[in-house]
């Protein structure tokens, strides 16, 4: 029984399938594309109007919009004709790269593509209104292709956005914990902004490799610019100090705000091994003392 039904189905389904997709549908699609090419100017005009009515792409000037809509339209029709999604992906990525810096949002991009889909569908209704079965067949061919295009454009746009965000995150991460040599064998780590555990981890890595690279003996970590730390980060900081000691460098922590000091004492972090000094200036002086530097001011009057 089962065998028969499973045998049965493809026999019936296959011809339907073929007729709907490949044979006549290819023919229908080319007819469709010809129609869209023929009425290109009018349809594009209508589309632009609807975009304006919907208040989309307000960040662009009318000229830019005209240029973009033209190229989007042409690409759209071309993909309908060839079914080549890769070319569209490429184009969509390109487009996203251009418009993302101008502040175009995801909903706008999806919105204009859907508008175009609707405008074109309307024109099909108009053209085939007398022949209902023909209209159905044309829509059968048109809709999956149009949806695929909308999907591709939206995904490409979001991908591109995410790529930009990732790039920026990397840049921020790179910049956020500089390890600066100020004297031979003396490093400074100014920490600006909130220290979360991700940044704390990165700080440790950069500090420890910085100690090795610069052969540092003393490190001053200045957290004047950090408003708050939580218990995990405080413990991480203590561990970083210990690890630095294992590498032969002593750490001075400066700029502990009253709030952070309170937090550290409240949560009971073991501070006995931490060398802390009020401000960065004091920390540098202590570091210079440890390294044997004696900084003296040149007396202008007596020397010249």
């Amino acid at each position, binding site marked *: 029984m089962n065998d028969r039904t499973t045998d049965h189905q493809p026999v019936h389904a296959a011809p339907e399938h073929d007729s709907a997709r490949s044979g006549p549908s290819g023919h229908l699609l080319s007819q469709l594309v010809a129609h869209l090419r023929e009425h290109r100017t009018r349809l594009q005009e209508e589309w632009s109007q609807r975009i304006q009515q919907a208040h989309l792409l307000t960040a662009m000037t009318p000229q830019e919009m005209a240029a973009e809509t033209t190229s989007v339209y042409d690409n759209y029709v071309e993909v309908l004709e060839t079914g080549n999604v890769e070319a569209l992906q490429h184009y969509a990525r390109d487009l996203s790269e251009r418009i993302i810096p101008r502040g175009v949002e995801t909903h706008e991009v999806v919105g204009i593509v859907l508008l175009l889909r609707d405008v074109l569908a309307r024109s099909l209704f108009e053209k085939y209104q007398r022949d209902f079965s023909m209209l159905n067949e044309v829509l059968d061919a048109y809709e999956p292709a149009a949806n695929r295009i909308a999907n591709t454009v939206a995904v490409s746009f979001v991908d591109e956005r995410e790529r930009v965000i990732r790039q920026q995150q990397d840049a921020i991460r790179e910049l956020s914990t500089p390890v600066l040599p100020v004297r031979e064998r003396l490093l400074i780590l100014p920490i600006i902004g909130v220290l979360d555990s991700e940044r704390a981890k990165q700080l440790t890595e950069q500090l420890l490799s910085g100690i090795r690279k610069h*052969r540092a003996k003393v490190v001053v970590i200045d957290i004047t610019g950090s408003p708050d730390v939580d218990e995990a980060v405080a413990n991480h900081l203590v561990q970083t100090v210990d690890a630095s000691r294992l590498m032969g460098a002593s750490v001075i922590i400066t700029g502990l705000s009253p709030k952070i000091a309170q937090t550290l004492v409240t949560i009971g972090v073991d501070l006995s091994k931490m060398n802390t000094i009020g401000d960065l200036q004091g920390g540098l002086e202590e570091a210079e003392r440890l390294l044997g530097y004696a900084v003296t001011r040149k007396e202008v009057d007596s020397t010249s």
Partner: protein
Amino acid sequence: MNGGPALVSIMRQGSTLIASIHTALDDSELVRFEHDLVKQIGEHRSRGVIIDVAALDVIDSFAALTLRRIADMARLRGALTVLVGIQPEVAFAMVRLGMGTGQIPTALDLEEGVQLLAEVAATRNLGSSRSQPQKRT
């Protein structure tokens, strides 16, 4: 346990022993290393020991314990131990796992370790009237 080539080279430089660990040691190899090193401290009348772990990218708890034991034994036999060359990742892993090096002084690399021992020796010599370390060939 005592067979095979040594995985640690122990070299004498004046009154200092320099032990350079070339590869990760298993427990029995660590025990052998401990034994060899402590024996040589007596043989050479060393005043300082430098253990270079730069080649290790892992130091487990037994290795850390052994290093602490060596330092304690060396102290009992009159030598100060300095641990040098701990890799950044190793340093942080050791701290996270709560196995510090205890009281053993540490230094960045061999050069720093030698300098540290020289400083300690200088203060020692100031404190006592002990003669300069003997130089034998």
